[in-house]
């Protein structure tokens, strides 16, 4: 019976890893020097613990087998041994000191928060990440790009299911990147396993982490602090590119910013706004207000048939720009451009039978710009 037990016990230890490669069962070996160092520390501690585990469980298996009740064998009577207890207490202390030395060294290295060549402000929002390149004044949001059909098992799941986003965080290789991490609403946590960075994003606090990637590549991570219902749906994708490509990326972002400003001044047709608004709605709004505009009572109100959407244009603009205090609705003033906000408001005003007469007024990008200007 004891042998049976030992085999059973060993079963999950041995056979499960054999089903897959080691990659699937162990920590990322790290893509950066710090990542590799923490992986090394993890393996050191793991093997020490593994050895202790094997010794203790092995001794236990031996005792269980050897001292099972036998005819004519009396149990011993001893109940104390100061020498033994003293010895193993010292032994434990020595093992722990041995473990704490490499841990302390790595800890000090991980906590280097001197300024980087490039500083990136990361802000967690329910349920997306915002990346702001502080020196270049470039800022954008990064949303999950896995389709709802994949999530609802209506389409085959891709290779990077739930680990793909619309906008990668692009960083140059060979540079020291410092991340400044905070949050806008609840606590999130920014984790990229290959960099061994996991820092909580806390409203009102700015935490730091840093990395230096030497080889180009794509690195994926996820939010690791429960942040509400879509906590599982706010992944992180970091793309390391050569410094030249990085410069180009920043240039493109800056140009796009200028173009958007020009678009605000343009005259938009209803069709153009509706087409754009539908895309914006799918990306930013369906999580709460749903595809059919019905929302999820009681937390997320319906837009279909809503009095504000149908009759109160000014209030609807205000809600999108300022968010709703004490509710899940956040401000989109910085997340979306003026054109996008105008488009999505127009879309909601003209969808789901909100506009049976077909005469509902559209919202022009200029109105959003005016709202912003008046506020100043």
């Amino acid at each position, binding site marked *: 019976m004891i042998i049976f037990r030992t085999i059973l016990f060993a079963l*999950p230890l041995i056979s*499960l890893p054999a089903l897959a490669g080691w*990659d*699937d*069962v*162990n920590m*990322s070996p790290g893509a950066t020097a710090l990542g590799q160092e*923490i992986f090394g*520390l*993890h393996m050191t*501690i*793991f093997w020490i*613990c593994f050895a*202790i*585990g094997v010794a203790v*469980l092995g*001794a*236990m298996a031996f*005792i269980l087998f050897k*001292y*099972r*009740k*036998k005819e004519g064998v009396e*149990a*011993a009577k*001893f*109940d*104390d*041994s100061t020498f033994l207890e003293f010895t*193993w207490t010292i032994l434990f*202390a020595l093992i722990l000191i041995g*473990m*704490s030395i490499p*841990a*302390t060294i790595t800890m000090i290295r*991980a906590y280097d928060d001197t300024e980087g060549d490039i500083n990136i402000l990361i802000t967690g929002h329910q349920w997306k990440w915002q990346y702001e390149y502080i020196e270049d004044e470039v800022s954008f949001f990064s949303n999950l790009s896995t389709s709802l059909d994949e999530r*609802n098992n209506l389409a085959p799941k891709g*290779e990077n299911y*739930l*680990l793909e986003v619309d906008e990668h965080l692009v960083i140059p290789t060979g540079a020291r990147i410092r991340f400044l991490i905070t949050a806008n*609403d*609840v*606590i999130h*946590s920014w984790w990229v396993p290959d960099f*061994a960075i*996991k820092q*909580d994003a*806390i*409203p009102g*606090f700015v935490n730091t982490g840093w990395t230096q990637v030497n080889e180009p590549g794509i690195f994926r*991570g*996820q939010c*690791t*602090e*429960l942040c*509400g219902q879509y*906590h*599982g*749906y706010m992944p992180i994708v970091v793309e390391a590119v050569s410094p030249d490509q990085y410069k180009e990326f920043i240039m493109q972002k800056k140009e796009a910013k200028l173009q958007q400003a020009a678009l605000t001044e343009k005259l938009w047709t209803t069709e153009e706004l509706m087409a754009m608004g539908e895309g914006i709605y799918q990306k930013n709004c369906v999580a709460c207000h749903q595809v059919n505009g019905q929302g999820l009572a009681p*937390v997320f109100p319906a837009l279909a048939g809503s009095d504000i959407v149908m009759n109160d244009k000014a209030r609807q603009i205000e809600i999108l720009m300022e968010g709703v205090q004490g509710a899940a609705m956040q401000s989109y003033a910085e997340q979306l451009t003026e054109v996008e906000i105008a488009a999505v408001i127009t879309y909601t005003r003209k969808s789901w039978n909100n506009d049976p007469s077909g005469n509902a007024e559209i919202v022009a990008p200029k109105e959003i710009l005016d709202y912003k200007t008046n506020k100043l």
Partner: protein
Amino acid sequence: MSAVIESHHGDHHHGPAKGFSRWLYTTNHKDIGSLYLWFSFIMLFVGGAMAMVIRAELFEPGSQIVSPEFYNQMVTNHGLIMVFGVIMPAFVGLANWMIPMQIGAPDMALPRLNNLSFWILPAAFGVLLSTFLMEGGAPNFGWTFYAPLSTEYAPPTVTFFIFSVHIMGASSIMGSINIITTILNMRAPGMTLMKMPLFVWSWLITAYLLIAVMPVLAGAVTMMLMDIHFGTSFFSAAGGGDPVLFQHVFWFFGHPEVYIMILPAFGIVSHIIETFSRKPIFGYSSMVYAIASIALLSFVVWAHHMFTVGMPIAGELFFMYSTMLIAIPTGVKVFNWLSTMFRGSLTFETPMLFAIAFVALFTIGGLSGLMLAIAPADFQYHDTYFVVAHFHYVLVPGALFSIVAAVYYWLPKWTGYMYDEVLGKTHFWLSFISVNLTFFPMHFVGLAGMPRRIPDYAMQFADYNMIVSVGAFLFGLSQLLFLFNVLKCVYYGKSATAEVWEGAKGKGLEWTVDSPAPYHTFETSPDLTKPQTNS
């Protein structure tokens, strides 16, 4: 157990009242112990059903049976119920039954308080579970309820949650006062502190921990209440408050709470191992000192739950070192249990099997805990399934197995009947296999990068999650066997002797009274000042 507590020994004491009023008005420690144990047994199936929903949702990638919102409600309430509704009440139930009998006292020191501390507990969980029927749904912010997710961003039912936690806390504090008073004042003559059974010692220390930290939890939820309803900003950064303060306050409660859920297990396992080894416990005094030092250390390690909040490096190092220190007294206990079995005469009845599994699997949970203590490595482990694996190893094959072991060990004493040994062993083997199948692969997916508390996951975690789910369903079903075995014992069991176990001779006062234990025991204290065979 209700049917069999009545005493048939024709003594002069009045027996229990009949019907429901017996249970509602009872001040008898045995009745109240049974109430606590049945309550926790029911809650085990409630919390277990929620775990089944979680594992069904995670059986495959993709959205399966529940929405992400309901999934979070399941995760939250599973945790709350298992911690406050299963493990803690079960230990209090065992304390109620066993402490008076182990120290030779006629009852608990404060019987009416005892009744109250039990009966407000179903009220607390009634309040908590009723939130599932309310608009906005049940609490959905995790059992650790970090602000501001649990304040500004919480569903309106959070207020019910706060009151429920207050009532649970009041119940625990009253229970602890009762236990401390009983142990300090009502021991039989001759039972000095250092002669007390280890279960009594472990509960004495646990009760002090409870009194120290439950008010801290009450403070945390009161601050939440103020933030939500009265315009304060304790935890709101926008109002000048500090969301991290919540975590410090919560874990100052939370870490001792973790030991509240394991120290009584140490006591139980010590008794069972010495009985079935037919040897006295090895290193009694070092066992006591180990429990005491674990309890003291538990007050200075809380921030190891917060290595990623951005503490200064001095804080990280302090909490890393203090956490590693806990490995010393814990290691001493494991070695003492092994030494107790060493050169013993071991038999493997069901309680012993569960106790041995406890030592083995708690060791695994302890070693993964040691890995988690290493702060820089914890940056990678924190909030992943590695943590989920770790705390389930110490709570399920740890705390829960010790409770199951205790029930099998003392059930014949409580009911007067033996449980079915074949069923008991079947229950053990099914539980042992499935518990490892459930929680061991979680280490792998955690290291490979799967965060905890997510309702859906990336493709590379699919294989192990399916194994985990199968293990979980098997574990859940196996516990029905436990319920069946207890009921079978109560209604159809064979009579048990006073000593019940061959090795129980001289292993405590509870084995000197009849089986079933009479409704009132030790109305005259046993005199332990003279040497006795049973002491």
